[in-house]
């Protein structure tokens, strides 16, 4: 499980003042529940992911992780474009103390990028990159997968594949997905939350969360 204990995160702004990403949030994220968090651009979704992953430290409060948590799976980062797919997998295997061959076997099957495995990742299309990074992440046995929109890159068959893998492991793993698109939430999540103005609010149905999010977007559009 992941436990939030009065979590607060603020960023100082240049020239005084600060932005509050989240304030005084407590809660337990159980396993076997796929959670989606919506928020408009700049609401702090990616920061939330980095806090949960442990890349960033809270301003106050704490997050306790009693589980293996993936790195935030996003568009950018994690993979070195100068190295080949295989070399990147070797690095991740070293980093997570995993068996390299197991990862390769899984990814070859999952990503279906064939000979590109031995090409520098700089030559990959964004779809191929997403397939590989998602594949590597799935090859490692995490309890929680932090997904930062990356599934949105792929086509329908890729998303279906991701769903199949996640569905298969439903008993043992959970997904924490952040997005500004409600489509991904409907595809992957059980409950939804909205991150807005430093408050993370969960709703008992996905549709309510999506409605609230759309409301926030409209207000933002009027403000602008």
């Amino acid at each position, binding site marked *: 499980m992941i436990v939030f204990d009065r979590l607060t995160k603020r960023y100082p702004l240049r020239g005084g003042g600060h932005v509050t990403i989240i304030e005084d949030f407590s809660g337990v994220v159980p396993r076997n529940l796929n959670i989606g968090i919506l928020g408009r651009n700049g609401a702090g979704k990616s920061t939330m992911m980095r806090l949960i992953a442990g*890349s960033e430290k809270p301003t106050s409060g704490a997050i306790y992780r009693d589980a293996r948590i993936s790195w935030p799976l996003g568009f950018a980062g*994690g993979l070195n474009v100068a190295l080949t797919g295989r070399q990147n997998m070797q690095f991740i295997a070293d980093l997570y103390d995993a068996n390299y061959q197991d990862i390769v076997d899984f990814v070859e099957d999952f990503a279906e990028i064939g000979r590109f495995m031995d090409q520098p990742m700089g030559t990959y299309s964004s779809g191929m990159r997403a397939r590989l990074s998602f594949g590597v992440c799935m090859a490692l046995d995490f309890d929680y997968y932090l997904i930062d929109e990356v599934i949105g890159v792929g086509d329908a068959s890729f998303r279906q594949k991701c769903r199949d893998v996640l569905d298969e492991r439903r008993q043992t793993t959970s997904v924490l997905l952040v997005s500004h698109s409600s489509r991904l939430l409907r595809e992957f999540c059980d409950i939804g939350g909205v991150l807005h103005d430093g408050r993370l609010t969960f709703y*008992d149905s996905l549709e309510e969360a999506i409605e609230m999010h759309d409301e926030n977007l409209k207000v933002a559009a009027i403000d602008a």
Partner: protein
Amino acid sequence: MAEIALTPPEPEVIDELQRRNRFWPALVMAVRVVNAMVLREAITRFGTMRIGYLMAFIEPSLYFIGFIILRSFILDRVPFGESALLFLISGFITVRAFIAISRKMMYAIAANQALMTFPSVTPLAAVFARGAVETFTMCTIIFLFYAFIVWGADTARIEDPVEMTWAAMALFGLAFGIGCFNAVIGMLVQTYRIVYAMITLPLLITSGVFFVPTQLPPEYQEIIAWNPVLHCVEWFRVAIYMDYEPLLSKSYVVGFAVVSLGLGVIACQVFRVRLLD
């Protein structure tokens, strides 16, 4: 709208989670991360072919040859000892190693930023990994240089190999410490990198590569004594020659290394978030 709250954590649960010893797992993790980063650094630094390792040696060798040619126009007298080559190597390779390590480390964080998506890959891990690779590389190169000259020329011999090991450790400590400082400050203040590149030449000139520092007038000695790399060069010469009179303060080198490393590590933690992207 029906808002729901995630179950708030129970106090006992938090107590239990807080009590866990996180030191050992964190240490094991840190070692694993640096190890993985070192392997990755080595691939990007040298490539997967052997020619990459050879290039790492050829590059300073070419510099050195150019340097000897240049010097033959300036001086023809051996500043100290019987072997001109040995004297020049004692200065040149020391300064070269220092500059190579401290400059490569300056870009350690910038070059590895994409990897900081992995929560365990911290800026400090990137600095240590690159520092380890560069230090190991330069250590090998220094060893090869001295090995070639000692076995190749009869007039060149090293008086005190143990002292030389200490000198090398001081040099690497200094380069690593300043490299760590450079890595962090270079990220925070971009112009620092240009400034550092600009001071490399004066650093080289005042390190006593071409001359014996104690033969300079005292007022010049006072100025160049601020250069910590000079002390490293002198430390090497003390180990090489039997009766070399050095301008050397060992505590200055060690102190400089410790302080710069300390500042670098602290700055790395304080500005952690700014270093991530």
